[in-house]
């Protein structure tokens, strides 16, 4: 199986470990990833808050590039990129006027041929958890995991959802398949503060603080995520949140690809686990068999 790979800006910078772990994991799973040549920023949130057309044209440009690769699927690990690609694709397919404008701006026709998926989708649906389970070399020994999906992976359901928008299960099912204990909790899809990390950091403290608190209350030993912004908000800002609310949290925040990579037998360094702010090594060494 071969798919186009759209890393997005974050995976080439602060979220490098997400990129590395994804590449390693998919290689192990037998899926060849080919990076979209010359990809540009999808525009994330700032584009669609400034101009509707720009917010659609940027993702479409990348989808045209993926189309030119001759592959029929492109995966985007960053939830924001994934969301923008899917929404732009859907809007252009539904609004012919918009499609005309996009094609005018890009100077190329838009075929809409390429299917957009999230790597989690590939693992859970295309490869299947049964196969993944069989490939596990190191069981997680009941590690208590709070699966945090965030907003953009599951909303709006008409455009992006391969999972339920209120109580999604795909990350939880993956955790269970690799031997962890997926904890039920009510904050799976509450917003972490998203792109306010730099501009309205206080809001991130409040929102991410509440999420981390709920994860602790649910009995979590760690949180697993599928978005670089969520990871950053919950991990990078965790110490500041602890200080602000005078409460110890100490929850490592891992990318699902890192957790899966560990289960498949890879080591912590190559999966970028040493790059996290909240140190996961002690917890994982204790847990992994």
């Amino acid at each position, binding site marked *: 199986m071969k798919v186009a790979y759209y890393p997005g800006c974050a995976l080439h910078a602060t979220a490098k470990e997400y990129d590395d772990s994804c590449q390693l994991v998919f290689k192990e799973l037998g899926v060849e990833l080919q990076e979209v040549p010359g990809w540009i920023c999808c525009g994330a949130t700032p584009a669609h808050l400034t101009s509707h057309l720009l917010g659609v044209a940027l993702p479409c440009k990348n989808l045209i590039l993926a189309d030119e690769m001759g592959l029929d699927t492109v995966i985007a690990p960053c939830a924001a990129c994934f969301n923008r690609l899917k929404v732009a694709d859907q809007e252009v397919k539904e609004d012919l006027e918009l499609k005309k404008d996009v094609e005018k701006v890009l100077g190329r026709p838009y075929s809409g041929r390429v299917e957009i998926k999230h790597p989690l989708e590939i693992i859970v649906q295309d490869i299947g958890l049964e196969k993944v389970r069989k490939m596990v070399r190191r069981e997680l020994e009941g590690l208590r995991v709070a699966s945090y999906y965030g907003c953009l992976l599951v909303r709006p359901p008409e455009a992006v959802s391969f999972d*339920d*928008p*209120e*109580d999604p299960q795909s990350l939880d099912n993956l955790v269970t398949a690799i031997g962890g204990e997926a904890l039920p909790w*009510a*904050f799976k899809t509450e917003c972490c503060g998203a792109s306010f990390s730099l501009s309205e950091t206080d809001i991130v403290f409040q929102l991410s603080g509440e999420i981390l608190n*709920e994860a602790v*209350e649910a009995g979590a030993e760690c949180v697993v995520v599928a978005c670089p912004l969520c990871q950053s908000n919950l991990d990078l800002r965790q110490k500041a949140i602890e200080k602000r609310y005078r409460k110890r949290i100490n929850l490592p925040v891992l990318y699902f690809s890192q957790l899966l990579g560990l289960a498949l037998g890879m080591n912590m360094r190559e999966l970028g686990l040493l790059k996290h702010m909240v140190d996961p090594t002690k917890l994982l060494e204790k847990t992994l068999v």
Partner: protein
Amino acid sequence: MARIGVFVCHCGTNIAATVDVKKVTEVAKSFPGVRFTADYRYMCSEPGQDLIRKAIREHGLSRVVVAACSPSLHEKTFQKCTEDAGLNPYLFEMANIREQCSWVHDDREEATSKAIDIAGVAVAKAHRNSPLQTTFIPVEKRVLIIGGGISGIQAAIDIAFAGFEAVIVEREPSIGGRMAMFDKTFPTLDCAACILTPKMVEVSQSDRITLYTYSEVEEVSGYVGNFQVRIRRKARLINENECNGCGTCWQRCPVKVPSEFDRNLGKRKAIYVPFPQAVPNVPVIDREHCLYVDKKKCGICKKVCPFEAVNFEQEDEIIEEKFGAIIVATGFTLFDYSIYGEYGYGKYKNVTTGLHLERMLNSAGPTGGKVVRLSDGKEAEKVVFIQCVGSRDEARGVPYCSRLCCMYTAKHTLLLKEHNPAAEAYVFYIDIRAAGKNYEEFVEKVQDEYGVTYLRGRVSKIFERNGRLTVRGCDTLSGTQIEIDADLVVLATALIARPDATKLAKMLHIPYDQNRLFTEAHPKLAPVETVTTGVFLTGACQSPKDVPDTVATASAASVKACGLLSHDKLPIEPQIARVNAEICSGCLACKEVCPFGAIEKEEIVDKVSQKKRVIAKVTATLCNGCGACNTACRPEAIDLDGFTEEQIFGQIESLVADRGDGK
């Protein structure tokens, strides 16, 4: 040759302002067969009708054409007028030069020309009208009432009082419906059982009312005055005539299962009476859970019954009965709120519905009248009520307002406070609909005297945290987000049609809307009738309503039914299909397209060959004269009396004929 009179109506300025009625009248004189013409301001008025009657007598007219408004308004008026003057009413023809002419055009010249054409076409048809005869059918003086809730019960009482027989078919083991589950009713706070049970007893004791409980209607055929109904009396496994309701059987039964009547909050036995005041007070055996039926074990009930009323060999009984009218009183069910992920997908034990709360509040209910947390049975000190769950929700629920919830939520908060004065009650609402008599005063009393906090806004999320529920809502009036930690959350779920409502509608040939609620004949003027003559609607199966409205519609439907039954015979419209046996090839294409099931096959002996063959046969009483069969028939063997092929072709010929005016 026919002698035709043409009467053109001005209808004040409705027609005359756009159409030159004098010209139409003038030109009509030249139509073939026309012997008399006249125009008048209001043809439907007494003097207008006098004009027609006089003309018929004085000029020996054999056909009457009135060019005026739509036949749906005054066809019957003019038919009667014609009949009064001694002519068969079906020799009258109406030309619509108002709705189909003056009201939709502006150009006077063109409208007048069109009106002339319309009148000409009517005259052409009138030539070929024949004196159709109304036939009559007998009427069975019995009414079938499907459903034994308060609406069915009230209808039965009214019909019996009027001197007719009523039969209630109720699918549950007892009559009483939803109302029997309630604790107290708003706004009087009467105990529901106390006001309902006397009516239930009245129904059981009346000579004119027959109760078939634990029974269902399986098939309905026939037509108004003569419905044939097949009813399945499901086997209770108890001989009703022997049982005296002593209760020894269910007291000794060892099997306990969740009770549907208590909404699964309490338990019942495998042999059970759904509630203490059940009518009939005869238990029923739940075949799925009975040890004897399932595994041939136990059988205690049979052993201890002093009257030997238990009969495990009893089978379903099928009975066929005839009725003159049918009243549909099948009621409602409740919206399933577990589709809302934001409310927990139904997995939080302490999130429940208004009907569950009724059972808790009821002193004879599963919690002895205490409002408790369903997770641990502790008394609920802080209760949040959420209105409009499923209602007014186009996205995932039903678009309409369920009408009752504002009132019963107010009632629930009052009763909660009465049972536990220390309890706190919060109500999240969008609007308060309290339009009935004393309803507004009731809600205000709850807000003032009982200290219930009303918050205006929907709730976005309910989740569990440390064994307590957190409710995240909003108060738009103060512009704040509201978060409440609650012991119990009560959802006022929408009243919706039962899932099998469509099956019943098809059985009865009545229409239903996109919400599966049965459609009334006219939303303003005929709320308890359907377009199918003889079938009436009452209660919530037509639209959500409270007890006073339900009782009102029950009485209304009974009057309508009794009205039918008070006739010894009913007239049938003669404008129905007729088969020409000579031409009919028996292909039965007409039978396939008939929406009323009015055509069946008939075996005849051919006059010429003396061999048997099949032709189509029209049941006059079922035919509605829609003409679909006519269109489907290839050899033109079936025709519609009053709208025959000959008549229609005559109209077409008149339209294309050259009238020498260049058009």
